[in-house]
């Protein structure tokens, strides 16, 4: 990388644009007992804030620091295991 010039470059890192989860007005809540592990929510989440964890009864885990509450995961879930509830 050139040291002489002032360049518009940055290294990507988690949270480089701030905690976007604070923008959320409705939050996705998962009822793991209804989940059939299809991973559609993981595939469709535009923020990539759903991880497949397979911890205990949880197949997926949502990172609420960055989930913007768009509701796409709830919409695509075939068993309605995800429900959008108003934020506190």
């Amino acid at each position, binding site marked *: *990388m*050139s040291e*002489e*010039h*002032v*360049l*518009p*470059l*940055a*290294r*990507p890192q988690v949270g*480089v*644009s701030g905690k976007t989860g604070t923008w959320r007005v409705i939050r996705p809540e998962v009822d793991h007992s209804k989940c059939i592990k299809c991973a559609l929510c993981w595939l469709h989440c535009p923020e990539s804030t759903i991880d497949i964890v397979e911890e205990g009864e949880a197949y997926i885990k949502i990172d609420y620091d960055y989930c913007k509450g768009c509701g796409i995961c709830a919409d695509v879930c075939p068993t309605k295991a995800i429900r959008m509830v108003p934020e506190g």
Partner: protein
Amino acid sequence: MAVRPLTGNYAVAWGARLSRVKVVAAYPITPQTTIVEKLAQFIESGEMDAKMIRVESEHSALAATFGAAAGGVRAFTATSSHGLMYMHEMLWWTAGARIPVVMAVATRTMGPPWNIWTDHSDIMGQRDTGWLVMMAEHNQEVLDMTIQMFKITEDPRVFLPGIVGLDAFILSHTTEPVDIPEQELVDSFLPPRRQPYVFKAGDPLIMGNIPSSLEENMKMRWDIHRSMEEAKKVIQKVDAEWERLTGRGYGGLTECYRCSDAQYLVAGIGAWVGDMREAVDYLREEFGVKIGVLKVRFVRPFPREDILKWASSVKAIAVFDRSVSPGSAGPLFLDIAAHLMASGTMLPIKDLLAGLTGVDVTYEDIANALLRFVSEVEEMGTVKQPIEWYFGR
């Protein structure tokens, strides 16, 4: 070396081929020219080892060229008039990212109405983007500058993209004998590509994120300006080096023709500088007017120091502009006047707005307008109107 009849468009294509361009991205339909058609032929026949990306718009053409260049290869595109306008946003992104790219612009007037003739409105509209902008006078200069521009833009002191401008039709579609240098000569002149950073798979890098501090953002603009100043030295050096190899030098940022004893100067950019030379020869021979031609080769960086030097010993300057900022004046006139005045050089300057929208301007037209300008200054010590539209005799 081989002298061949080439249009300006083909001269550009040869320049890109000899520079070993690896990616050409272009919108293939109007207002595109035969530049990319010729490049497509070179690639198809295997004479050029490159990828041609046909995109859906000029905005995407530059985006793809920029992307390829950011990925580390020499990349090239070409456009004209409305295509350049559509691309305008991406010119800012490319320069702001400091990624060297070379583009040819066949300068065509803007609509309405639609036409394909020359004027400089399209190219002059890119002055503030951070691209180097030059205009060629003839097809040999077009070929030589396409090659030179890669070396200039890839110099670490510069690291900015550059435009080679050629007047539509007058150069782009007109054939002249052009010396095509040998590949070995160009290889010895052009070093392997250099750029400030390369986007690589597995090494994530963000370009152009929202800045954490606006001062840092402003410093990037300042650095582009500073690098433009540095580019002046690089342009001189690269031109001198080309002259050593080929015998063809162009004077760097400017050339002054018959200026040693000149009392008057006529300034211009592009193909009609050739007509200005004829007009000046004619005025000297027929009327004994001591006048020279100030050929401005680079619009950006603007050759302030050269202009001051050439203007220091003359009585007055006439500037021919082939584009106008309506409500102000022609852009070349504005730059020359501003830099002269700012340095304390006060002399009469006249802006002659001519040849706009493709109106033909002959050397007789230029001589005629200059004769009136000279007699005004001789009689009154100044010019009647600093900004004058010339519609023909």
